[in-house]
């Protein structure tokens, strides 16, 4: 059993070498983790308290998270009260979110965050704490309605997550393509998105329809090789395309 799981791990690591961008890495990871019940993933470095919303978002390296939840999460500043984020900073071992329950049971705020996450299909999660070379604390979360993991599968996901994040950092450092060239309108839409505006609000400000906003966001996402609106904002900030 664990032999087979180990072989799958090695194959995953080998295949990662062929991924070309964050979107590739996400889809490989989800494909591998789906059979355990994981449908979503989020990975990045953990912001230090005091960082504003935009800085928080620019820490994200891999994003396949329910967008409505991300929006809500950052808008409400949940990150510094999220028990999983707290555990990433203090733990040296991967954990299932259910294992944190005894620690946050008495905090109504933390309980509410976890319950709300559940409403966005993030009921069960597995998080791997990591440390980057620069000494930043990083986390890699996989989540879904229900996760089922044997000890050896936990080990497998731990290794997969580590290599996937390593690959994402490497690809970011050595861009295989030149800095994305976004049109002024795409930049504008992203800039508003960075301010936390909804598609409708962005449309209002730019004098175009919601559909028009959607179109520009989609092409910006594609040009940046990113998987979501939040991830596109993060990447655009990193590349200095928006502020």
């Amino acid at each position: 059993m664990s032999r087979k799981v180990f072989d799958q791990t090695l194959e995953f690591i080998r295949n990662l070498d062929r991924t070309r961008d964050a979107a590739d890495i996400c889809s490989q990871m989800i494909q591998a983790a789906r059979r355990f019940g994981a449908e979503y993933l989020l990975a990045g470095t953990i912001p230090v308290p005091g960082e504003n919303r935009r800085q928080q978002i620019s820490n994200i390296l891999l994003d396949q998270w329910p967008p409505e939840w991300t929006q809500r999460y950052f808008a409400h500043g949940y990150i510094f009260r999220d028990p999983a984020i707290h555990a990433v900073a203090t733990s040296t071992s991967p954990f299932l979110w259910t294992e944190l329950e005894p620690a946050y049971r008495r905090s109504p705020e933390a309980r509410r965050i976890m319950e709300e996450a559940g409403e966005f299909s993030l009921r069960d999660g597995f998080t791997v704490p990591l440390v980057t070379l620069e000494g930043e604390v990083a986390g890699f979360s996989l989540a879904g309605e229900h996760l089922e993991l044997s000890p050896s599968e936990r080990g497998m996901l731990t290794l997969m997550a580590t290599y996937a994040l390593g690959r994402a950092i490497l690809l970011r450092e050595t861009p295989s393509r030149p800095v994305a060239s976004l049109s002024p309108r795409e930049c504008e839409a992203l800039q508003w998105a960075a301010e936390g505006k909804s598609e409708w609000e962005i449309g209002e400000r730019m004098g175009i329809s919601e559909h028009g906003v959607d179109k520009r966001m989609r092409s910006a996402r594609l040009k940046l090789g990113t998987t979501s609106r939040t991830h596109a904002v993060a990447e655009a900030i990193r590349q200095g395309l928006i502020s």
Partner: protein
Amino acid sequence: MIHIVTSENRHLYRQEMEQAYRLRHRVFVDEMKWTELAKDDGREIDQFDDEHAVHMLYIDHGVVQGYQRMLPSTRPHLLSHVLPQLCEDERPSGSHIWEWTRYCVEPAYRERGRTLSPVANALLSGIVEWGLDRGISTIIIEMNPLWLLRLVQLHFRTIPLGLPQRIGDQDVLAVTATFDRRTLARLQEMRGNQQRVLAEPEPRIRRFAR
């Protein structure tokens, strides 16, 4: 600077090796609670500290601030004799593969937060310089998977030898990590200079044969 101590030159480093064994005891027994290594005299010495071991000491003004030990994979070492369960496949072995163990830094010289301190950087650079000089390209490491990302970022090409396992209260993973000039360049870039960290070998003491 990193000084390499082997059976050939250890008579020149008696006092420093004494410090090194005591540092090991303070870090691994007192701090990390590997109580099975405890020794009454406060010197942590095990069965692998024989004439084949290569000790690397970070020495500043006569004080040992950091230490690590390299063991040849062609002789008994931790993966072969203490933690064989961490290796699923055939055990890596060869003159170009050595095992890296007992890495430790005196608390005062550790990273603030968790970044790579100058002593930590020098110890890692020491392995790479030493390896590149001798045709050694790969090290075996047993560690908490938490640190794996750093090795990947340092351009060590790492391959797991098995899945992480729980040993005591720690998760432990065995990997091989292969390095090259890029690894060295990365470490130099991080510390901001390209000077060698390895001390030049001491002048050979002439041996008097009868």
